[in-house]
């Protein structure tokens, strides 16, 4: 059981980290609470399913097309729907909720509400420390780690990353220094959604694909981001691993754990917020006026 907890927690934590870091990024740069973030994850899974099972493309082609396509769609949605109402925070909020609903209903219409299965990318598994780990889960972990390193490289080793961090730090000053903050926001949207899309593609063979698959990870992701501190990459990563393990422990160790896994994770988030209102690694914001 301990080994099960170890593996499940690590794999789920990796997926959550991909989602949470993308969400945190877009919140930090553009102050958008993007409820549609996991809807893009759902779209990527559906796209991958269509290309792989219906169009019989290879795994790599299907995955690449899905990620690029969903990212392009996200940038388009941002330009058409979010940018015109950027000054009104409340309007942005319900625009993202409405977008998520639109995607959910579109998928429900075109694929129906039943679960879709996707064949594993890699068959077989390996026995490690007395617990069998399917290769698919190893792949998820590897991809998550690779993407996280890639994001770190983009943010801390390129000029674009510098611009993103500067904008997140202070939008107005970044604008005065000659950065095109609108374009920076757009790049950030693309970066963050591509992370969600990668997560959607890699987990599609393990989880089932259905139009409502965005809701459960959405709540967990929000819990992680709040736990780690909004806008903090390090916090999101540590929060993701922590919540992944907490869920795994609840499911394996408690009676009726499957029902309680969300509740326990959220209760821990609330408990942390009571002690540290700005999350574990959040910066205590000065009063924003």
């Amino acid at each position: 059981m301990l080994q099960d907890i170890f593996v499940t927690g690590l794999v789920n934590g990796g997926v959550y980290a991909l989602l949470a870091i993308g969400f945190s990024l877009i919140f930090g740069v553009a102050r958008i609470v993007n409820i549609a973030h996991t809807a893009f994850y759902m779209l990527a899974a559906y796209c991958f399913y269509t290309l792989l099972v219906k169009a019989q493309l290879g795994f790599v082609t299907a995955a690449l097309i899905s990620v690029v396509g969903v990212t392009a769609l996200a940038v388009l949605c941002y330009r058409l729907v979010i940018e015109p109402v950027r000054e009104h925070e409340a309007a942005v909020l319900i625009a993202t909720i409405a977008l998520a609903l639109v995607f959910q209903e579109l998928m429900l219409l075109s694929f129906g509400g039943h679960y879709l299965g996707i064949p594993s990318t890699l068959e077989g598994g390996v026995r490690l420390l007395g617990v069998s780990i399917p290769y698919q889960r190893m792949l998820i972990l590897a991809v998550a780690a690779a993407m996280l390193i890639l994001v770190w490289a983009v943010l801390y080793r390129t000029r674009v990353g510098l611009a993103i961090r500067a904008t997140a730090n202070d939008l107005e000053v970044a604008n005065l220094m000659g950065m095109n903050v609108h374009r920076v926001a757009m790049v950030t949207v693309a970066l963050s959604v591509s992370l969600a899309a990668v997560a959607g593609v890699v987990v599609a063979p393990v989880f089932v694909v259905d139009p409502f698959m965005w809701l459960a990870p959405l709540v967990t992701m929000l819990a992680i981001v709040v736990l780690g501190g909004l806008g903090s990459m390090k916090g999101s990563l540590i929060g993701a691993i922590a919540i992944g393990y907490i869920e795994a422990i609840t499911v394996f160790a408690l009676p009726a754990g499957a029902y309680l896994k969300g509740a326990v994770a959220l209760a821990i988030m609330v408990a942390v917020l009571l002690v540290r209102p700005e999350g574990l690694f959040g910066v205590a914001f000065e009063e924003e006026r």
Partner: protein
Amino acid sequence: MYLARRAWAELKNEILVLPSRTAVLLWVLALLALPWAYGDAYVLRILTMTCLFAVFAASWDLLAGYTGQVNFGHALYFGAGAYASALLSLKLGITPWLTIWAGAAVAALFGFASGYLVLRLRGSYLSLATLAFPLITLGILFAFPDFSGGELGISGVRRLAVTPVANYYIAAVSMLAIVFGLWALADSKFGIVLHAIRDDEVAARASGINTLRYKLAIFSIAGAAAGFSGALFAHYLRVAGPSTLEVALSFQVVIWGIFGGLATVYGPVAAVFLLYPLTEWLGSFRNFGELRLLAFALIVLFVLLFMPRGLAPWVRDKVEGQCPRCKQRNGAWRSVCRLCSAPALS
């Protein structure tokens, strides 16, 4: 005779001079007169639900719009009211006329508790933390299926009244009472303090306002109103299920509130009265039924592109203007202010 003349004068000078007040009057009269004019059971059913959700949306606006505590888990109070009232009336056999008050009281308690927990949080942290509460409650309910009925919920709850017309009047009258009550509250000194807390909590505290007490009070009041509507909802549908606690309902009320216009009370009510019957009507077409939620989301998106501040403030600014001197509102067609006769700046 004197009273009648007095009433007419009030009506003419206070209500009919402003299009928005006239619209509210017409709306109230239409609501009360509807069963005589058009007593179709289906229409009455939809409007009963609309009234209940209008209370729910208005209570959210008091919390999110006026006080700035944007609550993403407002379904908690709705569900608490529904479950408490249903359990009390079913397990203990108490008459529903009493249990709906008990449901509101339990929801107020939940409001107080959740408000107490998030007192130190602000902004997005508060929104996301409040999202957790209904889900935690839902997880606990699912873990004890004997008590809560699990995923099926508690069914077989007694109705308040038998006929559709009586049920409609219960919902409509309590909706009018609560919504006007909340409106009066929001317009009172209490409401001004709420505005101050939203705009600048530190400044409000520096002015000697105990903001914590006000925030707890508003969480309890909003919780009680939402719980009352939840209890009525459970007794109307005769079931209190997990759908009353779901994320979808919490998001729904956020959409209604912002679509109608924040910090207005009448905005969210107007949004519910437009959007809920509209989506139900769209759903009644056989080929169109599946597109209901899609159409709802698309309408919200498109309307938002043109009216980012919400529907009600946009319409109100079109038909009314503010006098530049005395700050009273005037019909947009007037060239001088009706009170101080200052020329209106276009």
